[in-house]
């Protein structure tokens, strides 16, 4: 994203729900839904590795914001993405009409700054080198 800001390149986001993880149906201590690509060992292998601790911390924050807004977990996740710098469009996926209609409800409204901040905090990851080092030099602030 820092490069995209500098070079005026737009971002197209794929897999906005993290391979079905942020559908609101993947929860601590519960079996995976009957139909999900997460049940396919091959699909799981081809996707990103996410620890349960990290995932459920994010899901907890999404749940809180969902309760505040009356929106669904995937709607919150997609709306958050649309507020990230350089994002032009988010590619949704749907196996059926119901999922599609839910995702279409992710637009036409905006999370508040506080809600975005809460989701930012829950999803923050430790900076890898050289970013943690750069962060300490006031002539080279992180652009986002």
């Amino acid at each position, binding site marked *: 994203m820092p490069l995209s800001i500098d070079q005026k390149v737009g971002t197209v986001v794929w897999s906005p729900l993290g391979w079905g993880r942020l559908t609101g149906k993947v929860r601590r201590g519960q079996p995976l839904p009957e139909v999900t690509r997460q049940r396919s060992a091959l699909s799981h292998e081809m996707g990103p590795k996410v620890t349960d601790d990290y995932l459920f911390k994010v899901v907890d924050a999404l749940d809180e914001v969902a309760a505040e807004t009356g929106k669904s977990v995937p709607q919150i996740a997609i709306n958050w993405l649309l507020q990230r710098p350089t994002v032009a469009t988010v*590619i949704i996926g749907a196996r059926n009409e119901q999922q599609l209609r839910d995702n279409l409800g992710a637009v036409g409204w905006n999370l508040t700054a506080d809600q975005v901040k809460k989701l930012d905090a829950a999803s923050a990851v430790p900076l890898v080198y050289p970013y943690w080092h750069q962060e300490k030099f006031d002539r080279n602030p992180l652009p986002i």
Partner: protein
Amino acid sequence: MDYRLLGGSGFSVPVLAFGTGTFGGKTELFKAWGETDVKEATLLIDTCLEAGLTMFDSADVYSDGASEEVLGAAIRGRRDQVLISTKATFRRGAGPNDVGSSRFHLINAVDGSLRRLGTDYIDLFQLHGFDACTPIEETLSALDDLVRAGKIRYIGCSNFSGWHLMKSLAISDKYGWPRYIAPIKPITRSLAANTNGN
């Protein structure tokens, strides 16, 4: 539906696009994503268009070409109402030139996508990955030719590292070729902290 300009281009896209990796259901990997057929795809696209979602994203490797075929069949007769993005670079056959971002493979790949989609142009054509075996000049000059031939309108890239994108943009600028206007990437928190982010 809100629209946003895609990067520094004059091309507006809806803030939601529809990914068609679920269309087709061929191959073990893509069956796990979905098995939407033409009839179901047509109904989903009807719902998208009613909501103003006009952009549909595919790739030649999705379900071994079947995703593009289903999408093409489902938009037949209404091509002018939709924006199509698709991708190439990954392996499509056993031959030595059935893979990559060479001039040879990209020209074949675009012709194959146009045939499966049943259209004569692709709105946004994206490289699906970085091919380190092909000179970037060869890739971008082939894309420039494809734009001039009217087969593709804008170019983007996916799964590139930051330096792959920056080097490619610099080469486009040096020769006056089209720039990638959109890197496509999965949800990732804090891309400043991700050395693969771009």
